């Protein structure tokens, strides 16, 4: 008897918790659905979303779309060491490039490289920026002054040039490109977060939390930071594209990806070597336009997708523009 009532009690508690959970989630779910609805209304943002999803799918299914040779590094493009072939020739859908590297393979696997770079740089920069910016904005005083002067230093050198200087110190590899870009990318985030924190700090709900007696760190990371995320998310979305743009630029100059890597910027600079000359295939002469055109186009579409999405998100996430 006693056991049974205890079981009932437990079950009721469980049911109540579920009900409570569902109830508390309901407004969030509604907002999420509303966001989707707004998204569907904005054609450009939708196109951006589709491009982004397509790129992610491309990266995930790369081994299926372009199977690598067995026992080979999949990030290296397979080559046949012949002259460049035009698109469609000899089973190469998009032709071949420098040393006969298969363009189609490079295009597909390049999406992996790009997504890895932007994911690492943007997430690391945001975490650093979020932490330093929040501390700087909330505590103020000497910490704030020092941190902001440090960001000043970083912001006064143009991004690509600073990244070049950092990359020059490190050895040439893709990982070091990511490091160099992170060094360039965190200061704007610290600035952005600090500004947000300063404006949210004075709002009534923060005062309420303070009145209840919450700890300073709890107020900062549970109340202030979550409420200043919207513009940061928008910025992150756009930066996913911009990081790839700058990384490709660095690769193009000669930093980063080693020769023959499936990296779009490197492919463009490889293609440049053949760009203004002619290749012969089946007795016919060609100007190898495809070597530069396709990887460059991929960079453009990739960056454009994230920019469109970010632009749309800005309108959707801004509470003043929302309704």
């Amino acid at each position, binding site marked *: 008897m006693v056991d049974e009532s205890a079981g009932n009690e437990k079950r009721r508690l469980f049911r109540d918790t579920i009900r409570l959970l569902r109830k508390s989630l309901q407004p969030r779910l509604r907002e999420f659905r509303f966001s989707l609805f707004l998204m569907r209304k904005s054609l*450009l943002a939708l196109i951006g979303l589709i491009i982004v999803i397509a790129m992610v799918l491309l990266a995930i299914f790369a081994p299926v779309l372009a199977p690598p040779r067995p026992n080979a590094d999949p990030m290296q493009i397979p080559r046949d060491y012949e002259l460049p072939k035009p698109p469609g020739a000899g089973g190469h859908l998009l032709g071949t490039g420098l040393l006969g590297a298969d363009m189609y393979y490079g295009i597909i696997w390049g999406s992996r490289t790009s997504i890895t770079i932007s994911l690492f740089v943007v997430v690391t920069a945001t975490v650093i920026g979020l932490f330093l910016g929040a501390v700087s904005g909330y505590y103020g005083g000497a910490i704030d002054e020092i941190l902001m*002067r*440090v960001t*000043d*230093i*970083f912001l*006064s*050198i*143009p*991004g*690509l*040039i*600073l990244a*070049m*200087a*950092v*990359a*020059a*110190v*490190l050895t040439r590899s893709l990982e070091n490109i990511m490091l160099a870009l992170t060094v360039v990318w965190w200061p704007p985030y610290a600035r952005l977060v600090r500004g947000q924190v300063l404006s949210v700090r004075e709002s009534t709900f923060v005062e309420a939390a303070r009145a209840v007696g919450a700890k300073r760190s709890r107020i900062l990371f549970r109340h202030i930071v979550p409420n200043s995320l919207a513009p940061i998310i928008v910025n992150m979305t756009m930066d996913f*594209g*911009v990081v790839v*743009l700058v990384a*490709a*630029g660095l690769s*193009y*100059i*000669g*930093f980063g990806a080693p020769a023959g890597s499936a990296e779009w*910027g490197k492919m*463009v*600079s490889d293609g*440049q070597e053949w*760009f*203004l000359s002619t290749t012969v295939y089946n007795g016919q002469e060609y*100007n190898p*336009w495809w070597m*530069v*055109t396709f990887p*460059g*186009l991929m*960079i*453009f579409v990739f*960056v*454009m997708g994230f*920019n*469109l999405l970010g*632009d749309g998100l800005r309108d959707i996430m801004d509470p003043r523009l929302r309704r």
Partner: protein
Amino acid sequence: MLLGVSIFVFSLTRMAGDPAAAYNQSDRPLSEAARNAINERYHLNDPVYVQYFYWLEGVIGGDWGYSPTARLPVTEAIGKFFPATFELTMISILIAIVIGIALGTISAVRRDTPADHATRIMALSGVSLPVFWLGLMLQFIFGFSLKWLPLDGRYDTNLSLLAGNRIHEYTGFRLIDTILNGNWTMFGDAFLHIILPAITLSFGTIAIVTRIMRSSMLEVMNLDYVRTARSKGLPERLVIRKHARRNAMIPTTTVIGLSFGGLLSGAVLTESIFSWPGLGRWSASATLSNDWNAILGFTLLAAFIYVVVNLAVDVLYAYLDPRVRLE
């Protein structure tokens, strides 16, 4: 702030091995004795912070070290390469201002029409286009296939030889020098050479200027004084030109000033593509061959330009916006 930049970049470059090699002016590797002499002369055996002060003393006194890539001392190299970059940047920013402001105004005035959508898409693609790819495509289409414009370089070497190098360099700016010399053939040649790099470089800035111009125009168009201007019966053209656009120019000026940094970054890529003998190409080759003095030199220069431009923007701001002046 410049001090901060110098400390940061200096420690960065000293982190990477062999600073003595940077002072090597020949192609052969350094002998042991020479290395010791260099270490002695440039105080490289001292701790890093002491080295920094020696270096800073040199920089202030005009000794920025020797750049093996340029085969010149850094200060002379900057003097040699700067005019080419400055010329290119100025032309690009001019293109960007004219086109950007025009497009931004049209886009805001005809809001939500096809013209507006087209402009917005163009502006977004402008910030998404890889500079180096755009440059290569333009080079391929207009330089290689159509042969309308020269492929690369700053001027035609044959033409320059025919003129017997009689062009006296007054300013280092090719476009101005050729006019001052009264040589119109060579002016035309220099003009044709600058078109493609300038368009390539300006594309991103056009996009940024268009965007900010559109949003600030939209904001201004709803303000009271624009309504007043309209209600007193001014023609729409005048309302836009004299009342709305002038005020919308204020935020746009700031953005144009800030985009200078982006232009310097873009110049690295653009100059590499078009073999433009400027700072950008030099800095790209210098970083690739670990030319530390050069790296230090142009990062400091970039930071210096940033500071100067910001100051100029502040002054311009006061000129454009009387409210700032009165405070």
